[in-house]
Each structure stands twice: as structure tokens, then as C-alpha cells.
């Protein structure tokens, strides 16, 4: 009846476009890094770059649940650990293929996320944070007790992962580009997830769980699915971290690490995906730069964080957006 008189809704304009634009710019800068490093004759740059890319994957995966699902996981470093140890353990049995190692990392992470997520999601707010922290610490202490792989001291890799039978990842440049390609692919995946039916429900639960239940959604299933996806993606970051460092240790999964991932997401701007990538870049570059200047770099980093949170609560993404909007107006 009313159909005929209804104006058709204009296609929805969401901040999607901005998110993708920012990510494309970041990816282009990353892609240009190795040639620049080569020109400067400083291969160390490329290794640092690979580390940044791996953390960018992890931060972005965390943002998927933290930013879009309002689930503040304080135990996400566990998944970094599963990724790194999947490489170390399989490699010690002669399985070097990066796809098999990644598959193992994802499998273990999916199981761990499924069980710990199902338990953690019975709680809310600060209790959720505490319980994910507790599970993260359990994983941490499990690997500390793993004496066959060095326990506390960690374990050096005999070689990097192989890609389709080739040892090309031994080359730092190749490892860098493989990590970058993975980041791009996972960004695309996250971007699609956020804009999908599933993503809309997840975001709706963040906005108002009561409303979502009253229209027929059980939040738990959606939150748990997102939690598992995020954990699996984070473990992929671990696979690249192990290859970058050619060394694994429980230090990758300590609660400090989980905290750093949260800092990256908040610093970059929660719920933006590209912000988390920028946040990883900013946090790790600051760590390198400040660390070179002073032993007390954490103090200065802390000050920077305080200023950011006070003056740009939407993080780097918020700043960029402001500047872009101003540019458009003038």
C-alpha cells in the first residue's frame, strides 16, 4: 500500500571509502620501503618493516573484535604465540611449508578461541578483560613449561618457512613482501566482513545488545564467531613474526604484548581497521626512535599516549579524518 509513495533510499554512504583510501596509502608506502632501504644500503629497515607489518596484522585482527564488537581481549598475544610456535614446532619435525604451518596455527587458535571465548563471553566489561587476560597467561605459562622448545629462553629456528617448496623467504625482501601481501589480503577480508550481514549484526550488538535481542539475534553466537576469526588472523601474524625474528619465545605471548596490541588499536583509532595498521606503525616506530634516543623511552611513549588520548580520542584515524575534512572544506 504505502510502497508506491516511498522514496527509494539513496545508496548508503559510510566511512568505508575513507577506510580503504587510508589503507591503500599505507600499503603504497610499505611497498616502497624495500627499494628505499636498498638505496640507503640499510637492510635492517626491511626487517623492522616486516615486524611492523606482522604487528599491523595482529592489531587489525584485534580491532575487528575490539572496535566492531566491543570485546576488549587482553589475551590476544596468545594467538601470536600459537603462530610463532606453530612455525617452530612443525619446523623441528621437518615441516617447513608456510601454508601447513599457518594451517596448524589457525587450527590451534580456532580451538583455543572457541573454548576460551565461549567462557569469556559469559562475562561483560572489565570481567571480560580479566578473563581473557587469565587465559592468555595460561597459554604463556604453558609455553614457558615447554622445555623441549627452550621454555623461558625460547628456541632459535634452523631455517625460515618455505613457500611452495622454495626457500625464497630466506631473503628479507621476499619475506617483507609476503607479509605485506598477507596484510593486504587480510585487510580486504576484514573490510568485507565489517560490511557484510555478519558485520552489521556484530556492530549492532556493540551498539545495543538489548535492541538486537529484541529483533531476534542471540549476541553470543555472533560475538563468538568474531572472536574466533580474530584469534585465527592474529596467529597468522605470529607465523610471520617467527620468520622475521628466526626465533620464538614465550615473550611473544606475555600480557605486555597483549597490552601493546590494544595500545596500537587505540592509538590508531578503534573501529577503523586502517587505523590499527597506522597504530602499529606509529607505536613500533616510536619505540625504535625513542629507544635509540633514551633508555627511558617508555616514559616518553606514555606521555605521547596520554596526549593522544586526551586530544585525539579517535586516534590517528580521527586526526587524519579531521585534516581531510578541513582540506575538503577549504
Amino acid at each position: 500500500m504505502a510502497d508506491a509513495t516511498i522514496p527509494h533510499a539513496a545508496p548508503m554512504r559510510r566511512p568505508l571509502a575513507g577506510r580503504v583510501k587510508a589503507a591503500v596509502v599505507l600499503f603504497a608506502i610499505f611497498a616502497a620501503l624495500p627499494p628505499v632501504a636498498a638505496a640507503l644500503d640499510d637492510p635492517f629497515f626491511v626487517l623492522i618493516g616486516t615486524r611492523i607489518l606482522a604487528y599491523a596484522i595482529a592489531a587489525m585482527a584485534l580491532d575487528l573484535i575490539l572496535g566492531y564488537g566491543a570485546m576488549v581481549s587482553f589475551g590476544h598475544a596468545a594467538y601470536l604465540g600459537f603462530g610463532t610456535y606453530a612455525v617452530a614446532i612443525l619446523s623441528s619435525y621437518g615441516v617447513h611449508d608456510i601454508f601447513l604451518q599457518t594451517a596448524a596455527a589457525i587450527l590451534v587458535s580456532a580451538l583455543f578461541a572457541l573454548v576460551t571465548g565461549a567462557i569469556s563471553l559469559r562475562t561483560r566489561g572489565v570481567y571480560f578483560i580479566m578473563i581473557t587476560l587469565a587465559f592468555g597467561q595460561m597459554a604463556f605459562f604453558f609455553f614457558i613449561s615447554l622445555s623441549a622448545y627452550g621454555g623461558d629462553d625460547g628456541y632459535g629456528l634452523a631455517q625460515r618457512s618455505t613457500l611452495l617448496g622454495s626457500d625464497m623467504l630466506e631473503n628479507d625482501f621476499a619475506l617483507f613482501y609476503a607479509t605485506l601481501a598477507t596484510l593486504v589480503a587480510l585487510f580486504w577480508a576484514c573490510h568485507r566482513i565489517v560490511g557484510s550481514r555478519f558485520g552489521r549484526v556484530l556492530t549492532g550488538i556493540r551498539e545495543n545488545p538489548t535492541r538486537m535481542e529484541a529483533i531476534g539475534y542471540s549476541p553470543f553466537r555472533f560475538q563468538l564467531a568474531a572472536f574466533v576469526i580474530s584469534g585465527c588472523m592474529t596467529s597468522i601474524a605470529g607465523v610471520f613474526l617467527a620468520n622475521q625474528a628466526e626465533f620464538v619465545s614465550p615473550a611473544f605471548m606475555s600480557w605486555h604484548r597483549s597490552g601493546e596490541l590494544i595500545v596500537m588499536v587505540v592509538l590508531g583509532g578503534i573501529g577503523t581497521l586502517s587505523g590499527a595498521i597506522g597504530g602499529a606503525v606509529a607505536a613500533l616506530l616510536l619505540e625504535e626512535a625513542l629507544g635509540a634516543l633514551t633508555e627511558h623511552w617508555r616514559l616518553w611513549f606514555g606521555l605521547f599516549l596520554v596526549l593522544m588520548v586526551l586530544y585525539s580520542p579517535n586516534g590517528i584515524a580521527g586526526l587524519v579524518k579531521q585534516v581531510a575534512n578541513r582540506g575538503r572544506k577549504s
Partner: protein
Amino acid sequence: MSSLEIRHLKKSFGALKVTDDVSLDVRSGELHAIIGPNGAGKTTFISQLSGQLASDSGDILLDGQSIMRLSMPKRVHLGLARSFQITQVLPHFTVLENVAVAVQARSGSSFRFFSPVAGDAALNARAMAALGEAGLADRADVQASALSHGEHRRLELAIALATEPRVLLLDEPLAGVGGEDADAFVAGLARLKSRFTMVLIEHDMDAVFRLADRVSVLVYGRIIATGTPEEVRSDPQVRAAYLGEEEEEVA
């Protein structure tokens, strides 16, 4: 169309009996209004029907089937929708998205991870239809948090409609809406009347007596009268407990 039977429903908060042995038949297709003073337990009753609150005892039958043990989402899937007295929207979603996500709950799986939902023409068309019925079609692309109070009330109704209910539970849809806006809203409800079985909680007596087929009066968690608007209006117990009081307030 569907009927709702409520049998000996109870709910206490501590020592306070908020729903005190309520039995009620909401007949198929009728608009059944529930009136009662502030704090009578009307919202609590609706929350028990919708499954948001667990009941202490009693039974609720939707078309003869007990739904007591079902969660709120499951009851929604059986066609029981509610609106909230205090507006519950997704503030950072557009108006259209608020409604489209409700349509989505009843159409196809929500475990679809890759295809973009924003351009889903089928969902959007049905959401627009619900918005049209609630008189909010021209605000589809506005962020929900930017709506006026009256528009929020309309959105609340549109969302409930979008779940394709068989029984619609409306908790003071007119709360805080005044003047011409309220008249238009009542006219809108009148148009919906024949299509759903409705339970309407409302303080606005004019609206109640215009819309309702039958009225129940809830006071301190008990139903003290049920009948046609005329019967209820002339019931001495009701006048003493409620309507008289109201008229005194007005006077």
C-alpha cells in the same frame, strides 16, 4: 492471526510482587490495551511476555503453544515483537540500517561474511516499507542518534514492524509525543490495527479509548478489570483505583 494466552503469570523483585498472578486472553486480531498507574508493572509484564525477563511462574501461550522456556530472540522468530518505552536504537546506524537489520533477522542467514549488506536491495526495500508505515521514510539516511524524540518513537515502531510480527507488544509508543504528532501517530496505529494482534500499553486515555477493542486495567501487578472501553470506563473499581485519580490530577 495469532492469539496470546497468559496464565497465572508472576514476577517478584525481592519482596515486591510486580506481576501478581496475571491471567489474560489476548484474542486473535484484537487490539488489547493495558492501562494502569505509574509503577503498576506494565513494562515488567511486557518484558515477561517478550522473554527479556524470566517469569517466576505461570505460562504464556502463543497460538496455544507454550513459549515460556524460549529466549527473547526465539520468541521474536515465532512472531512476537515488542517496542520499548525507552527507545532502544542503534545510535550510529542510519535509520534505514536500524530497520534493515531487523528485516535481516527474519530473512536468510546472518552468518554471511563477504557480500556487502549495504546494497542488499531486498532488505532495503522491506525496511523502507516498514519506515513508510511508521511515517519515517523521508529520514532513512539520517543517523539514528540525530532523530528528534518523536522520530525516535516512530523508528521504534518501524523496527518492531520490520520483524514481521504476528503479535505486536507496544510499550507506550506515544511516550513523550505531543500535539499533532501524537494524533498522526494514533492514526498510524489505527491503520495497523487490523493486521496484527496487538497489546498496547498507553497512558494517553484518548488514544486508548480510540484504538482499543478491549482494555485491561493493571494496578499493583493485578488485573482489576477487563472489558470494552465503555465497560472499563464505567467500572466503579477502575474509577476508584485509576481513572478518578487521573481526572483529579487533570483537574
